[in-house]
């Protein structure tokens, strides 16, 4: 990626009237079918969605970092006694707007055979359009009325989805080493990236870092045990793509004790001899405070860095302008804020220009 250049993909405005009218809306709404909804641990779940027909065609092309808008308004609440105390008040809230979720994995449906147990496929078939069904997996955290409702979804339930939306991560030419950095609930798009790097850039040397406050806040399948205290712990989610991973927790309850950025610095100093910043790229997703630190680290170490941002979204499709992300204005100036005249800052839309941005672009 060239200096100061934003991740380009979604920026070229789509032509107002597409030359060829497709037989379906390329972004839906599509009806997906739940194939599994598995509790991981604590408040984390992994939801498998099956897309068929036009939906499969659309979602087969999902790039890691892209997201979709889920209509969860008609889904039932869990029984009263299954609602956690801290969500009792929240659960009474009505849902109007869709909710955005990114994907942890997108693959062609693999019919389980005698040789492979479900979910154990080491290398999924590359997705190609027009054939078969697509399974898209979402990892979610129960936080409020919509995610609480999601927990009651069972195999066979329909769910209305708009997507895939936004731009997604890209692999600039010349990159040989990828550092995947996940903070808390930021891991799903990086898991998806791990899948795609393995398929499309098999020579890329990738490594994952996952950080959270405590081990309870890590959205991964295997509850972290004592082994996790050893550096080099493999999270199954990345291990399945032969990508090694490190865990960092603020309280040291799993893996490295401290921020994930400190863990990366530690790793960088140990690998200083073989590490060429110009050939490396950091991909990060997580809470804003972590992204701020990672963006600074990347700048200090002269490593290119793409980060996936989250903003409150009313539409997710570029209609409402609610998801503004403050960015460095392009040379020549951006739109001034209110009555402040020429400014070095401008807003971009997280749902359309992002959610993935070049770290140098974001004004933290």
């Amino acid at each position, binding site marked *: 990626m060239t200096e100061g250049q934003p991740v380009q993909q979604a920026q070229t405005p789509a032509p107002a009237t597409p030359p060829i009218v497709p037989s379906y809306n390329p972004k839906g709404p599509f009806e997906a079918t739940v194939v599994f909804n598995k509790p991981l641990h604590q408040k984390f779940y992994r939801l498998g969605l099956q897309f068929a027909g036009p939906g499969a065609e659309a979602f087969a092309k999902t790039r890691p970092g892209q997201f979709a808008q889920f209509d969860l308004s008609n889904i039932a609440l869990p029984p009263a006694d299954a609602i956690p105390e801290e969500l009792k008040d929240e659960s009474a809230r009505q849902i109007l*707007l869709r909710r955005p979720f990114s994907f942890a994995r997108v693959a062609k449906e693999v019919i389980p055979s005698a040789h492979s147990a479900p979910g154990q496929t080491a290398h999924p078939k590359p997705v190609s359009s027009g054939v078969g069904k697509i399974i898209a997996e979402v990892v979610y955290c129960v936080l409020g009325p919509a995610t609480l409702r999601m927990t009651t979804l069972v195999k066979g339930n329909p769910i209305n989805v708009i997507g895939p939306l936004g731009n997604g991560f890209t692999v600039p030419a010349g990159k040989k080493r990828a550092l995947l950095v996940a903070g808390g609930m930021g891991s799903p798009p990086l898991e998806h990236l791990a899948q795609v790097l393995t398929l499309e850039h098999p020579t890329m040397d990738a490594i994952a870092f996952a950080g959270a406050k405590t081990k309870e806040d890590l959205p991964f399948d295997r509850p972290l045990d004592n082994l996790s205290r050893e550096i080099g712990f493999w999270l199954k989610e990345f291990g399945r793509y032969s990508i090694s991973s490190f865990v960092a927790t603020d309280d040291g309850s799993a893996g490295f004790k401290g921020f994930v950025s400190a863990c990366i610095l530690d790793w960088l100093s140990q690998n200083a001899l073989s590490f060429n910043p110009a050939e490396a790229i950091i991909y990060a997703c997580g809470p804003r405070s972590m992204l701020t630190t990672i963006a600074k680290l990347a700048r200090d170490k002269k490593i290119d860095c793409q980060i996936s941002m989250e903003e409150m979204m009313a539409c997710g499709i570029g209609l409402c302008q609610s998801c503004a992300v403050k960015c460095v204005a392009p040379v020549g100036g951006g739109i001034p804020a209110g009555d402040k005249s020429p400014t070095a800052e401008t807003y971009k839309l997280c749902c359309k220009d992002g959610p993935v941005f070049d770290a140098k672009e974001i004004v933290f």
Partner: protein
Amino acid sequence: MENQIDMSVEFAGLKLANPVWTASGTCGYADELGEFMDVSKLGGFITKSVTIKPRQGNPTPRIVETDNGMLNAIGLANVGVDEFIAEKLPALEKMSCAVFVNIAGETIEDYVAVAQRLCEQKVIAGFELNISCPNVKQGGITFGTQPALVKEITSAVKSACGSKMLMVKLTPSVTDIAVTAKAAVEGGADALSLINTFTAMVIDIETRKPVLANRTGGLSGPAIKPIAVYMVNKVFNEVTKGTQIPILGMGGIRTASDAIEFILAGATAVAVGTSNFVEPNCTVKIIDGIHKYCDNHGVVAVRDLIGKVE
């Protein structure tokens, strides 16, 4: 669809294919919406508010969901009239429905200047005067709440907009909406649109701060619908009934039944805002639903329903 039903309505001299529009600020400049539906099916389209200079808008969070509604404090983020003409207008030319440009500003001169810049543009059928935005410090709603100002700004823009139609968008955040409606009519409004959002607030009880960076925002969505229907009916009965001035009714419309309520209350046409976020092709479904209602109820022309609440 069995019988031939006349879905067209006459709106202040404009012949519209049907009475369903999209509301300002909820469909940008039509480019994104085109990915989800055939926008040429709409009766009318209203752009996001355009101001004389570009505006970045408010800091985030700009929205928060409420029960059956949402607050927004976008802050009239828009590219400004020059870039609007250069970048956005050409795409609007391809639309076959009535295109309205929503105008906002901080001073009367701002509004007039935008109208003057745009009044020669062929593609534009008319202007919607936003004197009801609750999310900007200057202008906006302060114009819309004072009848004398409503009249003054309406007549100033009316004399600047040439042959274009002028529709004035009213705020519900007043004691009596019929009073401001009357003021707009006296100022020379060709049509009225109502309602804009209600000024409202949501507080995060953990941080004890308002959720929106702007502190307050405008409430929209199904939660406001019954009030909007009432206000349309009030303005129809007290101001526009028996005149040539049509009402564009809006506020929480999600289904064809909602739209029909507005039409029965006195709206000649209806606009859909927040619901586009949830179902970007909902206007197409609403058009079909109105058609079905007419068919089922032996109504031959949708205009026969206007103001027919008993």
